[in-house]
């Protein structure tokens, strides 16, 4: 499954993730939540809510946001910012989809691990 292509690491197929769902990719920098929104956009963010570290990959996906399963913070998948009255941010990881295959940016993951 894992393959190298320049800066891009293949992590799976689009069809591995249900629409409005998420899967986890385990990395040396911690878990990454990879989402697929209703319109098919693939997004990747750290799998840790900025509030109490809840696993965002387990939340309900709506629009381009996810609601954390622990205390209902709503996090933007595009920017990683908490929405509404809450403030906080998770890091986003650049994603490329090519030929049905999902790639994460290796350098971004590296930066995350270094941070």
């Amino acid at each position, binding site marked *: 499954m*894992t393959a190298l292509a320049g800066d891009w690491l293949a992590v799976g197929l689009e069809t591995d993730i249900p629409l409005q769902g998420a899967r986890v990719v*385990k990395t*040396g920098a911690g878990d990454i939540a990879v989402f697929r929104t209703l319109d098919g956009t693939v997004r990747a963010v750290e799998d840790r809510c900025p509030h109490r570290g*809840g696993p965002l990959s*387990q*939340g309900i996906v*709506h*629009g381009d946001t996810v609601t954390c399963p622990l205390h209902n913070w709503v996090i933007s998948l595009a920017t990683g910012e908490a929405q509404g009255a809450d403030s906080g941010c998770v890091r986003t990881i650049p994603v490329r989809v090519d030929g049905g295959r999902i790639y994460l940016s290796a350098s971004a993951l590296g930066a995350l691990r270094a941070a």
Partner: protein
Amino acid sequence: MSSKLVVIGNGMAPGRVLEHLFEKAPGAYEVTIFNAEPRVNYNRIMLSPVLAGEKSYEEIVIHDDHWYAQHGVTLHKGKRVTGIDREAKRVVAEDGTTADYDKLIIATGSRPFMIPVPGHRLPGVLTFRDIDDVSAMLDAAKPGKRAVVIGGGLLGLEAAAGLRLRGMEVAILHLMPTLMDRQLDESAGFMLAQAIRDRGIDVITKANTEAILGETCVEGVRLDDGREIPADIVVMAVGIRPNADLGGNAGLMVGRGIVVNDRMETSDPDIYAVGECAEHRGICYGLVAPLYEMAAVIADQLTGTDRHYTGSAVSTKLKVTGVDLFSAGDFTEGEQRQEILLRDAAHGVYRRLVIEKDRIVGIVLYGDTADGPWFFQLLKEKADIAPFRDTLIFGQAYGELAPADPISAVAALPDEAEICGCNGVCKGKIVAAIGEKRLTTLEDVRAHTKASNSCGSCTGLVEKLLTATLGDAYNPQAVKPVCPCTDLGHGEVRRLIVAQQLKSIPEVMQALEWKTSCGCAKCRPALNYYLLSTWPGEYVDDQQSRFINERVHANIQKDGTYSVVPRMWGGLTSAKELRAIADVVEKFSIPTVKCTGGQRIDMLGVRKEDLPAVWADLNAAGMVSGHAYGKALRTVKTCVGTDWCRFGTQDSTGLGIRIEKFMWGSWTPAKVKMAVSGCPRNCAEATCKDVGVVCVDSGYEIHIGGAAGLDIKGTEVLTRVETDDDALETIVATVQLYREQGWYLERIYKWMTRVGLDTIRAQVVDDVDNRRALFDRFLFSQRFAQDDPWEARVDGTDAHEFRPMADLAYAEAVL
């Protein structure tokens, strides 16, 4: 000693007489009511919203059983009076029940007129008069089926709009060239026909029905020009006839209706007639406002005030959502008459006032009816409009001091301006009540003044009055929306899902005009539950709209691990189960094992990836999911009952196990916890559960509506039954009613507070057929629910939920 008052008929008019009577002179009369319909008094003018699915029967009940009990009224439901013996002052019902009276009120109402064309007795020919008619229409109203409504008046249009909303193909046949020809002029009738056609309803005017076709049931309608219109049902809405026969047979003077004088007395001064059966000064009224005025006069007469009824000016509003129409008075043309007309085609506005000698005598408003009450007030006062005639047609806002916004327009109304036409409530009374009784909500105003309590079309005006009087202290959001994605409340969404046969989340969002593309984490789980409980076996559960716990069938913990609770039926376990649990705990290094409050064992700290393997081992020992994570049936806690306890009166453990085995797997609006105690010492703590049973020597007390969480609340006793079979049936029916009516996340005690214990009791205790039907619907839905979700996931269902998509730790190591 109190006098005996007997009332024949239990519609809105006699209901109002009694309300006034009990307010003015409580205890003055001992009241007996005979109702030919087998039920309490309900708001007949709200039948259209019930047909359209915008309201439920329970919401239009005016007086529930409790009200009759409270006022000591004997209500004979389903008993038709067949004779009045005026000599003996006694009435007799068809089953032989009699009642003596000192004063008698006849309120037999009216019946729909059936055009006596061939075929008018065929099955499928219906009328639109009472809740039974609505039920019959709803039974027939399957999407794609055809309905023909004969009569394009108020009732016919409302029936047609309701049936169309239920998905039927609908045609309206109207004898005259314009719809509602008795209330509208041609122009407004034309605009109305257009609006009705825009709803996908076929309007055929100048349609004279010659025959209703069909052999064994309705197949169509033939017009006198030879046209044939196919139909699965035909609704006759061509008019009503007063039910005057009972009065006539008793020798009272009868014209079209039972003739009454200005005191509302018939030709026998001890007998009054009120409502649609009465004829006053040659007029029989069919609208609610005059009936209420008559009712007030009778109540005064009964309590010694000699007030007179002198007739009513009536106005009409059409209760079809989205069509605003108001008419009053007489608008035929005449030599002495002039008209003032305003048309705004772009905005679909039409206003016509008919003026005679500088007085308004007729009003027709279409499109914008906000000024209706103001014009109507001028009409009733016979006000001289000459001073502001030039600007009259633009309405009150323009004609007077030109207040800038609708709130100040309402604030500027004189105290005697009528706000609620149905109940004759003027502005001054409402404002005074808001001040004196510190009313803050629409419901308060309805309860204290009756304004907006009947047809509801003045609700906007009442709300503006609340705003004008209370300022920001009034929050007009009477219905709390499900979430910011919609303005609709839970109750409305539930009803519209049923009424419009909406069967998927995208369909609901489209039809109900959701404001977001795919909802949010609040509304999606709610919609998923509503669809699942409404269309069992048909709707496909949307996993992505479920909270994580229900998606992976375990409880998420603060660190992202899960807890696992297997079912222990009635709290019983065995060496085999305990051994399997012990083995699982060791094998998967589960850090915490704890007893729950519901008599079972919780394993906490299980890693998500391990869940399927943990379940496989538990399954192998015969254990299934305990649904400790779901809005679902949780536990049925029991005591040991007659098996061991020296005080036990019944087999409480056995009943608990039976209930749990019957009901496990069912999804509910919020969690449902139950308990069965073997005696009133109540060791299973049944009286703080959602549903509890307390066994006694003679049988079983069924309790509902307890809480021991955020709120603490003891249960209420729903009923007592003799056998465990009856206990099971009652409990299942109650939970099914809750499944069908409850709002998402609304626990049973909150549901009970909202709909009332009496309403629940009426449906699951008093109405045996209904209880059985609820039980059967639960049984049906269990066919699709009673599979162990753990076993399915051990076998590979939703495997993606439990495995990471990729593990890059190794790949990164080699980078």
